[in-house]
């Protein structure tokens, strides 16, 4: 217990030290405050920004895009991943191709998405979807493969129906891997949508951050970075918490 507590304290100390260093560098003028506004100023700006209707609207736009892309990519990717894992022939054909596709940086396709969808909602959702689906397919394949043949045989020997096998063996076996997949997919998804917004957009928090950067509004830029970082971390931690609740039996 003592060791865990110490580790937590050290962790908090590191975070405080980083913000303190930031504050000092800026306040003492070691780094030009116009390039690096102080941490305290940035937080004040963040509070101010969060109250602005335009920023709230941008956050809503981004959230809608992210959720739409996520809601499309996760079920479709999971379905494709499941079919690949369950069919030997399909798996042999598709797996290397998926690995090829996964290795390509998705950002190089962004101009094409603009040509096809124009600048707007569909382009961002489309690109978010495209950035996410490959990792969902691959994780689902791994999740299905994590189901042990022995467990399926046990279920069969006690007369389990297909539905019982699905819900009592497949689902609990796959759940920890699926939740991890969900978490990692969201990272890819968020990256995709924000990148699309920064590249070409009229609204969204990514567009706003890009604009602040271009106009040299460093306080707003850094506040925007903190905002997105906090949202991403919060989502990640929530899913991670659910993960630990569901996979306590994994050793």
């Amino acid at each position, binding site marked *: 217990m003592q060791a865990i507590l110490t580790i937590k304290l050290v962790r908090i100390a590191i975070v405080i030290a980083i913000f303190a260093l930031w504050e000092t560098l800026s306040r003492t003028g070691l780094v030009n405050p116009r390039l690096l506004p102080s941490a305290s100023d940035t937080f004040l700006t963040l509070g101010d920004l969060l109250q602005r209707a335009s920023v709230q609207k941008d956050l809503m736009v981004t959230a809608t895009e992210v959720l739409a892309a996520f809601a499309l990519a996760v079920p479709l990717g999971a379905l494709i991943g499941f079919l690949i894992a369950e069919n030997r022939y399909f798996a042999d054909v598709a797996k290397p191709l998926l690995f090829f596709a996964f290795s390509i940086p998705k950002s190089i396709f962004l101009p094409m998405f603009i040509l096809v969808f124009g600048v707007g909602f569909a382009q961002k959702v489309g690109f978010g979807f495209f950035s996410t689906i490959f990792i969902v397919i691959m994780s689902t394949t791994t999740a299905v493969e994590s189901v042990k043949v022995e*467990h399926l045989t*046990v279920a069969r020997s*006690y*007369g389990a129906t297909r539905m019982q096998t699905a819900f009592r063996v497949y689902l609990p076996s796959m759940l920890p891997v699926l939740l991890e997949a969900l978490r990692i997919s969201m990272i890819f998804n968020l990256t995709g949508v924000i990148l699309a917004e920064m590249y070409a957009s009229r609204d969204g928090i990514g567009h706003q951050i890009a604009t602040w950067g271009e106009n040299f509004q460093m306080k707003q830029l850094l506040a925007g970075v903190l905002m997105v970082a906090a949202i991403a971390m919060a989502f990640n931690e929530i899913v991670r918490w659910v993960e630990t609740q569901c996979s306590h039996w994994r050793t």
Partner: protein
Amino acid sequence: MQSLANVTPLKPPPRAGAIEVKNVRQVFRTKSQDVVALDDVSLEIKPGRFVVLVGPSGCGKSTLLMMMAGLREQTSGTITVNGAPIPKPDPNRVGVVFQEASLFPWLTAEDNVEFPLALRGVAKAERRAKAQDALKLVGLEGFGKRHPHELSGGMKQRVSIARGLVQDPPVLLMDEPFAALDEQTRMTMGDELLRIWAATGKTVVFVTHSLTEAVYLADEVIVMSPRPGRIVDHLQVPLPRPRTYEMLSGDAFGALRDRIWRHIRKSA
């Protein structure tokens, strides 16, 4: 764990089953040729007997066991359990105990034992009561709330046995259940299994690689040879029960083990 004295059987009149295997043949088709895994295997197992199948890898002993469980279909021949064929698994007639990794790690010991009952929609209270009885029978009273990763190898196999017995099937099929255990645990589990068998009166068919284990546990040992899998000997073990550790070094025990070994050496 428990001593022999305070064990009560699951149900007073033992439910034991008969198994009949007649001219069973199993052929695996590969691209280049047909492999005969089992060739004209016939045997009869009387109710309440403890029968062990031994033989080198590839003799089809596990395949034969899976057919008795209804998990596999033979190419030709018939297998009946209590007089009726078993084309698919029937937990009312046959309970199966597999190798070590077969418990569901996300379920507690008692939930694992209840699994076969849950599949059939048995009410929670009845399920729990039956699981408690089965866990008590295998000497794991009070361990029901633990997950498999919190149990030792031997305890996990006790849970598997409890799961196999929870529906009170007349036949218990065991596929190398102690293969993954260390020597000491294996000996202890052998004694435990004999105690449970004596308490329940089930028909047990047990597959193993170990000749010592075979002779120690069995009423009858069936020796099989590989490619094609055939029965080369069917011997009775006349050693008295309960079996004791001292018997292992006796002449009678040695003679039986040697007889099996000579068959296996010939075919290996």
